[in-house]
Structures are given as C-alpha cells and as structure tokens.
C-alpha cells in the first residue's frame, strides 16, 4: 500500500447544517468514521453541481473543526466563501442534501512535541482551520495567541466558541470596520517579541503568507503556512497545484501542495518564484 493519501476515504456526506455567518457559510457535513483521521490543516474535496453538472472537478475546503456525536456520527465543519459557481452551489444546498467527499487530504499542521508559544494568523476564511488547531495546541500545553485579518469585518470569521482556546485575539481589517485598521503583519514583529512566540501558524492568501514568511525568517521563528493553490484533483495525480520549494541543499522542486502541503515550512517556499517560469530556477 501507498503512504500517500493513506487516511483518505471517499464517502457520501449529508449536509447537517448550512448557516450564513457574515460573508461565509458554515457548513457541517456528516462524514462518519473518516472524522477520526482529520487533523487541523487537512482538507476535504467535495463534488459539486449534482448529477448533470458541467463542473468536472472537486472543490477543496479546509476542515475547520470536527466532532463526534451520537446523532450525526462524525461531522466536519467548513467555512465556505461563495466565490465561483462551485462554492456558490455548495452554499445554496439545504440540510439533508448528500455530497460526495474525499477526506482527510493533505498534510496537517505539525504540533510541537514540547509546549511552546504559538501565534496563529488567519486571513479571511483562512482562520477556519486555526480554531481546531488552537484546541489541539492548547491541549498539548501550548500558549496560543491569534491574529485575524480581512478586507472588512464581514470577512472575519471568529466564532465565540473558537476563542476558548486562545490566550488573545487581535483583529485587523483594511477598512477598519472591525478591530484595528491594518493588516495581520502590521504589528507582527512586536507581537512576536512581546509574547515570546516560538512558532507561527498561518493560513490565508498567498501574499499574506509571503509577508509573514519574511518577518518570521528575519526573527528566526518557525513558520508553518497553509498554502492555497488551484487544485484539479486534490490527491496528487494531476500536478496542477505545485509550488517551488527549496530542499536542504537549496535545490528547488515543484512540490504538490495537495499532498506535500497544504501545510508547508514557510521558509522553504520560494514565494517570489510562484507563477514564474521554471527556467529561472
């Protein structure tokens, strides 16, 4: 047996709940046993559009939180932005509808073996996987601070229950409509220093991940970034989702963000080369 996708299963999952929260939809899917293998940072790939759909590819969403109850069995929660036709279709489905899913996929966030001071940074719906991560980190004795950012307040996803596990939560919006006005990186150096941060976890737009990497590298702080590249398959067979990543010797390879990520070592990703002609490597 292969070691790739080894926890993944393909099941028909029922939509248990679908609720609008600001600019997003919180969607809860009953996925059964699969939930036991879902770790923060993993994602789910969902078939969209129904039987006679012209959309041939799955859509990938980060798993926000998981739970197991007697009534619904294992469930996963997603935070979905209605973006194009597939995500809009998903957001328009009502409770009871079945969708075919493959999960868990991708590499999860690495958890420190010893308790550490962790800073979690989320941009837009990028905060989704961070609350589940915060729970795990806290249960391992870590101190967890969090920074969330978005263009405006409706795009900040920060549920009440989620805040339980975080020591502090700072919010930035570009238009100042919630929290402070600015970006997640605005006070990053200070916060890292003040709070003695040892590891940064981030999830959000590529430009944000890149900016965080620069600061983290400067400060010498570890940084695990969950990247988001266009994915056709989500399971490693198509080579569309690649990113240039350096290995120990500095050699660059195009790694698949679906199976070698989405969580990657921020300092290894060649952010400047993303989307560039590979001849320049």
């Amino acid at each position, binding site marked *: 047996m292969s070691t790739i996708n080894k926890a*993944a299963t393909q099941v028909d999952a029922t939509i248990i709940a679908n609720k609008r929260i600001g600019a997003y939809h919180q969607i809860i899917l009953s996925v059964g046993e699969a939930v036991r293998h879902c770790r923060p940072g993993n994602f789910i790939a969902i078939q969209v559009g129904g039987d006679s759909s012209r959309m041939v590819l799955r859509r990938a969403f980060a798993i926000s939180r998981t739970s197991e109850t007697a009534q619904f069995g294992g469930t996963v929660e997603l935070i979905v932005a209605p973006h194009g036709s597939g995500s809009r279709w998903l957001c328009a489905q009502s409770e009871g509808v079945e969708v075919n899913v493959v999960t868990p996929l991708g590499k999860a966030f690495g958890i420190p073996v010893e308790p550490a001071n962790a800073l979690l940074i989320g941009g837009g719906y990028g905060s989704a996987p961070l609350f589940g991560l915060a729970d795990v980190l806290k249960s391992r004795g870590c101190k967890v601070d969090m920074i969330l950012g978005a263009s405006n307040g409706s795009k900040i996803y920060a549920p009440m229950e989620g805040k339980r596990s975080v020591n502090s939560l700072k919010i930035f919006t570009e238009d100042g409509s919630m929290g402070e006005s600015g970006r997640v990186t605005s006070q990053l150096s200070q916060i890292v220093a003040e709070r003695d941060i040892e590891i940064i976890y981030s999830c959000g737009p590529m430009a944000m991940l890149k900016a965080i990497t620069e600061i983290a590298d400067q400060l010498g702080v570890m940084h695990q970034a969950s990247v988001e590249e*266009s994915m056709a398959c989500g399971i490693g067979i198509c080579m*569309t989702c690649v990113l240039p990543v350096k290995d120990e010797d500095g050699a660059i390879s195009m790694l698949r963000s679906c199976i070698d990520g989405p969580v990657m070592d921020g300092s290894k990703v060649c952010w400047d080369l993303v989307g*560039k002609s590979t001849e320049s490597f």
Partner: protein
Amino acid sequence: MSTPLDLSTTLGNAWFPSPLFTASGCASSGKELAQFISLKDIGAVVTKSVMNKPRHGRPTPRMAETPSGMLNSIGLQGPGIDAFLANDVPWLLAQGSRVIVSIAGETVDEYSVLARKLRAVSGISAIEVNISCPNVESRGQVFATDCDTASRVIDGVRKVIGGEIPILAKLTPDVTNIVDIAKSVVDAGADGVALINTVLGMVINLDTMKPHLGGKTGGLSGPAIRPISVRAIYQVHEALPKLPILGMGGVSSGRDALELILAGASGISVGTASFGNPSAIASIQKELVTLLAQRGFTSFQQAVGYAHRS
C-alpha cells in the same frame, strides 16, 4: 447465473485482464490512487509521460475548469527516466499492476534514448510514445502533427525496442487528418495508437484580462471532448480495422467507455474523470460489465468496433 463476462483485452502482444487503464498524466505514477482503487484489478497503469532529464514543467496556474472539461498546462514535470525506473516501476510491479510506460522527448533522439533505458527493464507491458508534444528542433511544432516527424520518432523507438514490447503512438486530435498520421506511425512500426491526447485550448482570465494559464495555452480534456475522441477512434478504426486502439477522451462512466469501444477502442484510458472522482476507474469497469451483459455480449472483444458492423 451465466458465466462471467470475459473482460480481457490485448494491445499488440500484451494481454490485460480488463480494458480499463489510467490515462497518462492523470494518475501520476500510481501510488497516489492506490488508496482509492486496487491497481492490480484494473487493466493497467499508464504512467505520466517521462522524459530523459528531470523537469520542472510550466509555471502556474496550470489549470482552468471549463464547461464539462478542463484545461491543463503541466509541461511534463517529472523526475526523469532514471529516477522513474528506479522508484516507480518497481513499486507498481510489486503491487501486481500491469504497467504501460509513457515516454516523451524534445527531439527524435531523446525518444530513442528513453527506449534504450526501458529495454533494460523487465515487466513492462507496453510503451506509450507520447508524440503529442513540441519538437524543439522544429520550432516547437508538435511531433504528431506531421507524418514525417511522427514516423521518425516511432521508427527510432521501434528499432531500439525490437519486437518484444508493443509500442502505442499517442496522437493529438489537432490535425487535419488523423488517419494519415495513424497510417504513418503504423508504417513506422507502431503496434497500436492511443487516441486522443488533449485538444489545444485557452481560457482568458476576466480579472487580469490575460490568458489564465501560466503557459497561455493548455490541453482540453474531459466530457466536453468525448464527441471528438469517439469520432477520431471511429475514423481510425474504419481505415485500419486491425489496428489496436487505446481510446480516451472524456470517459467518466461505463456508458462513455462503451461509446469509445463500439467506435473501435480495445482499451480505455480514464484521465480527467479520476480528478473529479478518485474511484472513477473502478466504477466505470463495473458499469461496463453490466452494460455489455445487457446487450448480450459475452466478451469484451465482441463489442470492439461494433458500430462499424452492419
């Protein structure tokens, strides 16, 4: 219950227990799919076209979804033949899977070099020669768009391989007359043809107002192109009824597979459908058995090219 339907097929002198294969470039080297389907229970794994040297491929974005299809522009990213033969082929053979190795080159010579390296390896069922890629010696013109370069590639590979392993030439549909190309590769020694590779296409991104793909153009695949693949297979089977055809292009269900088979395909590769559904090949295989039985066929072979019979 009646006797089970005989699903086996042959391409040249290679035998396969089932006519359902992965499509090159749509299964990587097999490992990634093993969690979802049993690789030894399908016909064969056709591996991603491998070149002589490791290769980074084209810049991202590499894909765009289109109505009932997708465009890709991977640019043959891969580890190079040496690493491939060292790591991937032994793993596949250890699974009990049949392996068809797809090779691609930038020059006529590169194909011969690849063939030489393959000749040394045992256990490979067939070689798919992907000539639907750009020839750097001829202003990037695709090998398979010209009878002459197409046959020079096949001739080179044939000479190296000898008669042992069947050679399938993989053709592009982006030509004026695909039958002419098929005839020329057969004359050059191909045992069969693989039809069809992707159709050249483009998507413009309405935000940037520029071509969406990093490589500008890309290959169109998926159900959208199925009428084109059925037509190409029908035309080639009509002209060369004895020539084994590995059919592909837009197959995502048993009924789709049957269409290509009736048109003349002796085997079916499933590509894009596996992206949308990692267990697609296994479902298609199951559906095909039912459809063949419903139509009174007792073996897969009886259905091949049936649409031509009167």
